[in-house]
């Protein structure tokens, strides 16, 4: 067993090691617990300058770490430290630390500024006419520094087609978001969807309303020098809207044990194709889920 040497007071009242250690770290803790050296800014807002109060004397280094910034300045203690608008652009939690002989920190939150932009997500970009809940939109409110504004804000959604209003709905953002869902109109064409935020913050989107599936197909055909020319009557959906040009109509012609087919796109509401077939022919058409009538064309070359 080895021995160590210690020094104690003469009154023969030994102060134990444990007590001395406790005294040591008590002083240390006391030193470190002095947050009073630093004062957070009062209710800072994004994009506005603010100030941090300091106590003490001498020089120190200020560190400010935030959601989109990390700066370091040499400062004089005892004076207020200005934080520029650029340093506080992003809303969120900031840690301000002052180091001289030791470091002290304070945390504070920067709030978003007033709404200046709205992100407007509208779906779909193409909607068939008539179905319920075909169109939906989500509006998110941001300030000019791209901070999400979380205080409730009034939003008005409007749908207009061919100059007339189809829908107007008021909502309020919750956690920065407001949304709506509605039916599309009954006529094909562009549908303008607008979100108005309080003030003059507006966003507009266009939803192209397109005809639904072809509702009925009627075809007619006749023999020509080139072959049998078959065409549809104007192809429309069940609401009477002409289907978009380019919609494919499949013509099928059966002659004996031979089949001929043409995928012909609609052009100016009508699909047309030429079929080379000999003998009597039965021709039918289909597009999407719609089937057309049958046309029989007699024999001969």
């Amino acid at each position, binding site marked *: 067993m080895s021995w160590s040497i210690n020094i104690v007071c003469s009154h023969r009242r030994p102060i134990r090691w444990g007590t001395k*250690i406790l005294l040591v770290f008590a002083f240390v803790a006391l030193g470190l617990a002095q947050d009073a050296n630093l004062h957070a800014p009062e209710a800072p807002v994004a994009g506005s300058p603010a100030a941090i109060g300091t106590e003490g004397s001498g020089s120190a280094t200020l560190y400010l770490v935030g959601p989109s910034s990390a700066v370091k300045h040499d400062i004089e203690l005892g004076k207020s430290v200005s934080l520029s608008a650029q340093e506080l652009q992003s*809303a*969120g939690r900031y840690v301000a630390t002052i180091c001289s002989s030791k470091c002290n920190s304070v945390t504070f939150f920067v709030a978003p500024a007033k709404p200046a932009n709205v992100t407007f997500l509208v779906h779909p970009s193409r909607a068939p006419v008539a179905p319920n809940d075909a169109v*939906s939109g989500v509006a998110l409110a941001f300030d000019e520094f791209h901070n999400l504004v979380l205080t409730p804000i009034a939003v008005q959604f409007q749908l207009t087609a061919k100059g007339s209003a189809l829908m107007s709905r008021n909502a309020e953002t919750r956690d920065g978001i407001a949304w709506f869902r509605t039916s599309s109109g009954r006529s094909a064409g562009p549908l303008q969807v607008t979100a108005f935020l309080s003030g003059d913050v507006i966003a507009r989107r266009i939803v192209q309303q397109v005809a639904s599936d072809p509702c009925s197909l009627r075809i007619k055909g006749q023999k020509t020098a080139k072959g049998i020319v078959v065409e549809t009557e104007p192809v429309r959906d069940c609401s009477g809207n002409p289907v978009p040009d380019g919609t494919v109509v499949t013509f099928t012609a059966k002659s004996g044990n031979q089949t001929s087919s043409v995928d012909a796109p609609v052009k100016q509401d009508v699909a047309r194709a030429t079929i080379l077939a000999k003998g009597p022919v039965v021709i039918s058409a289909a597009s999407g889920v719609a089937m057309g009538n049958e046309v029989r064309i007699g024999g001969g070359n």
Partner: protein
Amino acid sequence: MFQTAQTELVLIPSAIRRRTVGLAALALLMFSGLSVFAADSAPQVTLSVAKVGPREVEPLTQRSVVRDYKFAWTNLDLALQSNSTGLMNGLFVGPASAWLSDEVKGQKQNGISSRYSNQIHKLDAVFYAPEGDVIELHDTAEYDLEILDGSKAIHAEHAVVHYIVLMTPGADRWVIRQLQSVPQF
């Protein structure tokens, strides 16, 4: 008559001395504010979809969001530790990406770095758009934050921070578009 202090040598067994020194060191460390951090592990992320609307979050989407959020925070920590935006791996877009890049740039210019250790994230999905193109999450994040100037630690804390998170679907992953801390939800 008054007593004068005298010094006297007292011999103390070293076993007792060693024990006492050890206790003192431990106490000193606790009060010094310098946390002893456990070895880093991957962020723990849990997701609750009990309050989400108007659209329900599909199970596959839930798994993807958790996976990609965990990956994003791992990369955020690495980016701020090493002051390199190359480690963000495309998991941040829009304002979230711009903010993180600016923070890394600022840190690098000033010789600062940050470290987010022992992360625990409790996510609550509060909004999922009807077409599934954006999801809003509330993250109650708990982590050990250490800020260093060079190799000197200037700030260390165990923090519980609330984040408003917007994530959008990318080509093959969910990405963070907004990561904004708030005092409370």
